[in-house]
């Protein structure tokens, strides 16, 4: 079982503030997720068994030609707030 402190550390990395109920909830849920990873660790992935797909030069690279995307405005429309053609976010305070 994940400790309360471990959950709080993960929450901090994810910039989340959790209630007491949520801490208890994530202790259980994250423990289950990690348990699944434990299961995956049993899969045989020695060097011989693990062969990464190695494509040839032609398929792994792109020639350096610029082609502007046709609909950048469409991407902006996904944003909750826009100002001066920029994504507007709440003021960022440098995290320390």
């Amino acid at each position, binding site marked *: 079982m994940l400790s309360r402190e471990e959950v709080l550390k993960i929450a901090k*990395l*994810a*910039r989340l503030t959790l209630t007491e109920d949520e801490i208890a909830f994530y202790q259980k849920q994250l423990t289950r997720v990690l348990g699944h990873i434990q299961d995956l660790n049993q899969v045989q992935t020695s060097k011989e068994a693990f062969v*990464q*797909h*190695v*494509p040839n*030069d032609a398929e*792994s*690279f*792109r*020639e*350096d*030609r*610029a*082609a*502007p*995307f046709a609909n*950048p405005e469409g*991407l*902006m429309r*996904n944003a909750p*707030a826009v*100002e*001066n*053609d*920029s*994504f*507007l*976010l*709440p*003021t*960022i305070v*440098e*995290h*320390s």
Partner: protein
Amino acid sequence: MSLEKYESVIGLEVHAQLMTQSKMFCRCPNQFGSSPNTNVCPVCTGQPGSLPVINKKAIELGVRAAVALSCEIHPESVFARKNYFYPDLPKGYQISQYERPYSTQGHIVVRLKSGDEKRIGITRIHFEEDAGKSNHESYGTLVNLNRAGVPLIEIVSEPDMRNAHEAGQYLRALHSILRYADICDGNMEEGNFRCDANISVRLRGTEKFGTKVELKNINSFKFVEKAIEYEIQRQVFAIESGEKIIQQTRSWNSGKNVTEVMREKEQAHDYRYFPEPDLPKLMISSKWFEQIKKEMPELPKEACERFKKAFELSDYDASVLTSSKELAKYFEAVVAHCKNGKASANWVMNELLGRLNAAGREIGDTPVSETQLAALIKKIDSGEISGKIAKTVFEEMFATSKDASSIIKDKGLVQISDPAALESVVRKIIEGNPSQFAEYKAGKVKLLGFFVGQAMKETKGQANPALLNELVKKLLDS
């Protein structure tokens, strides 16, 4: 405070944008100064389902840099995700290289003001993508993603530098190499060449490194040197007053000439690096590598050797003239027009660079063009003006950007090479100084110089010096 007791240890990290047409993993233009968020697409804004594809040219430029910096190149390297949260990083991770960079173990040899050379090691070079840009306003943060995904190489030095001057020279040499090889345009104001410095101090003779402080994003060579100098003194002073150096990130305030705390590093960053699953391993075949090597542009040290041979320049002159690509190009253009390498070197180094430095200007905004300087040198070579007058003319050219010929005409500075005209001047001087003439005749031959000087003064320096000398001697002895 006793600075001499301490030794500082400096390592630099440089981020250099690669001069490609398109971004690292998408086809958006790699272009500075476009309207905000116009060079963006699903890939570089981190839209679900989009996939990165590696820009071949970016890899080639990176390999070029590794060759130029005498680095080892690894035929197989791996892209990794560096996870952190910041609004200008839309994917929530930066594609970088971590455990297996494409290049390691290189070096640069830099020239110090003492005349010595120093070899500074390069730990590694790796590829990564740039983040977007945040502008902090009172009402919130504005994010522009035009820069997100622009290709970068990060060049990490060994902690080999011991003072601000060495760090400055390392940066200048690195900058020059990247510019020469057309890898990075080197524009520091636009942030295309950025430097972070790690600095610690320790008692001389000790092995263990002191606690290091990181200086972030300093945008000129001069500021890097000033910031490091300040930081070394600050740390020594703190230690001497019994304080402990805290590991932190600081920035240079160029208005106040001090470094200031940006953030304390209370714990090592947890970037949760892992191999980028959306990209294959980066394979650089030997065939490709050979091809890139074959297409390498000339590097500063090669240009230096060529200048020495072609224009019969000293080691020092050639290294100054090839210290930047712009300067080397300028010099070559001057020689091409006037066909006098030695004179071109003297004029560019002594007169032009001297004045540019004094005015705090770069060769890029010289008021005297290559052809203008060449025309001036030609006038000296043809005897139209003396070297001395040429300096006056050049001063005027530098101030007004006018051609030498129009300045010479306007000010009536043409050299007097007419023997009859000069002879009358010399006679006048001799007649006006009877006692010196008598002394000369009595054997005080040193007075020849006096008569030449007076005649030169009379002609406002415009007399042809060789001819004048000859005439004075002839008339005194007749």
